[in-house]
C-alpha cells in the first residue's frame, strides 16, 4: 500500500508511467470509464479548496468510481477534536483511497501512517501539493514531449510558493534543466531550496528581478501570485506588483512555443488578454490535473486496463 505525500515520493520512472497513462486516458477515455467500478474515493478537506476537491471527484467519477466526502468543516469530526490519525483509520473502513487537504504541514503524512488505504496529499498547508506538480508536469510533457533540456522561468513569489519548490524538485532530476528565478528581493527562492536542490543536483540557475529580461530565453514561464500580505509595507507591494504581471506586450518578447503555466487561481498576475494567446496553457493545466489524478488513483489502487 502506497501513498503520495511529496512529489519526490515518485521516481522518474513512475512519473513517466503516470504521464503515459494520462495521455492514454486523454486519447481513449472510454477505455477507462469502468476501471474504478465499485471503488470509493474519500475526499477529506479540512480546509476549503473547491477546485482541488472537484478535480479529485471528477477524476474518480470518470474512472467509474464513487466519491464520499466530509461535508462542511463545522460538522466534521475535526471540530469535535478527533485526531487526523483517528480520522484516517476510520475513513479507511469506508473508502478504498483518501484524498486529504489540511491546513497543517505534515497532516497528510500522519494520515498515511495511520490509514490502511492509500492517502493522496491534496495540500498540507504551505508544505506539499504533489498533484499540482503532476498537473504541471503533464502540461510540460504535452507542450514539449520531454522533461529534459528546458529553460524554466519561475516568476513571482518564490519564497512561499510551495508549487514552485515542488516543481523545482521534480524537474531537477532531469538532464539539461536550467532555471531562471524571477522575483523581488523579498520573495527570493529560499536558501535551502537553492542549496539542497539546485546546488546539490548541479542545476544551473540565475536570479533576476526583471520578467522582461528573462522572457526571451524561456521555454516555460511558471507564474505565481504575489500576495499583498507577504510585504512589510504597502509601498513595496505597489511598487512591485505590476512588474510581475504578464501582459501581451511583455509576451511579445518570448519564444513562439513558450508555455505559460500558473497553478491558479490567478488574481491579476496574468492579464486576461493573454488567455487568447496559444502559449497560455494554464486552463489546459487544470484539465491535466484531473487526468494525472486519474492516473494516480489507478496506480495507487493497483488498477490497469
Amino acid at each position, binding site marked *: 500500500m502506497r501513498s503520495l505525500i511529496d512529489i519526490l515520493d515518485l521516481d522518474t520512472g513512475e512519473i513517466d508511467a503516470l504521464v503515459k497513462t494520462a495521455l492514454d486516458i486523454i486519447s481513449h477515455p472510454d477505455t477507462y470509464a469502468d476501471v474504478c467500478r465499485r471503488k470509493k474515493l474519500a475526499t477529506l478537506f479540512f480546509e476549503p479548496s473547491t477546485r482541488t476537491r472537484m478535480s479529485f471527484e471528477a477524476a474518480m467519477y470518470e474512472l467509474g468510481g464513487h466519491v464520499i466526502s466530509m461535508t462542511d468543516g463545522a460538522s466534521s469530526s475535526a471540530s469535535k477534536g478527533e485526531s487526523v490519525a483517528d480520522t484516517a483509520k476510520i475513513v479507511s473502513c469506508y473508502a478504498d483511497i483518501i484524498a486529504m487537504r*489540511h491546513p*497543517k*504541514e*505534515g497532516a497528510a503524512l500522519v494520515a498515511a501512517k495511520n490509514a490502511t488505504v492509500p492517502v493522496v496529499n491534496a495540500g498540507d498547508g504551505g*508544505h506539499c501539493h504533489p498533484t499540482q506538480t503532476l498537473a504541471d508536469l503533464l502540461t510540460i510533457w504535452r507542450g514539449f514531449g520531454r522533461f529534459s533540456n528546458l529553460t524554466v522561468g519561475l516568476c513571482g513569489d518564490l519564497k512561499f510558493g510551495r508549487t514552485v519548490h515542488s516543481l523545482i524538485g521534480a524537474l531537477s532530476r532531469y538532464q539539461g534543466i536550467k532555471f531562471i528565478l524571477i522575483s523581488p528581493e523579498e520573495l527570493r527562492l529560499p536558501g*535551502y531550496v537553492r542549496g539542497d536542490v539546485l546546488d546539490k543536483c548541479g542545476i544551473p540557475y540565475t536570479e533576476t528581478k526583471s520578467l522582461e529580461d528573462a522572457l526571451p530565453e524561456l521555454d516555460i514561464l511558471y507564474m505565481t501570485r504575489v500576495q499583498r500580505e507577504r510585504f512589510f509595507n504597502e509601498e513595496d507591494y505597489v511598487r512591485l506588483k505590476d512588474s510581475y504581471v504578464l501582459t501581451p506586450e511583455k509576451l511579445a518578447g518570448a519564444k513562439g512555443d513558450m508555455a505559460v503555466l500558473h497553478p491558479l487561481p490567478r488574481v491579476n498576475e496574468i492579464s486576461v488578454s493573454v488567455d487568447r494567446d496559444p502559449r497560455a496553457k494554464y486552463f489546459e493545466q487544470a484539465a491535466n490535473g484531473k487526468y494525472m489524478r486519474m492516473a494516480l488513483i489507478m496506480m495507487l489502487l493497483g488498477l490497469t486496463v
Partner: protein
Amino acid sequence: MNVDSIRNGIVIDHITSGRGMRLFELLGLGGETAPVAIMLGVASRKMGKKDIIKIDADISVDVDVIGFVDPGATVNVIKDGKLIEKKTIGKPERLTNVIKCKNPRCITSCEQELDHVFRLTERGEYRCVYCDTKASPN
C-alpha cells in the same frame, strides 16, 4: 558523590565546551533521577576546553540525545569502578521526542499525541519528518 571516582555509572566525556548544560537539560538529568556532576570548561589537551557530565548511578541515557547535541562526545560506562565500555556516538539517523518542532504550522503543534520526529539530512541537519522544518540548534 565523589566527583573523581564513580563506581557504577556513566561519564560523558569530550563534550565540546559550551554544550554541557544543553546536553544535561536534554537528557533530563535535572530531576532527582541520579546524582550528577557537570564540569564545564575543563582543560583538555586535544580540545583546549571541554565539558564533562558524570552520572553516579546505573541508569540508561538516550544516546541519540548525546549524538544530536555533540556527536564527538564519548560515553564511558563504568561498572564496579572499572571502565567496561567506551564509545563515540555519532549523529543518529532519527531523533524521536528529543526536540520539538517549533513550526507553528506543523501538525505536531496542534496534535499533542504525535511523536516529534526529526531525520538526519545529507547535509547533516535535522529536519522534522512532518513539515521539513530545520531543527534550531538550541
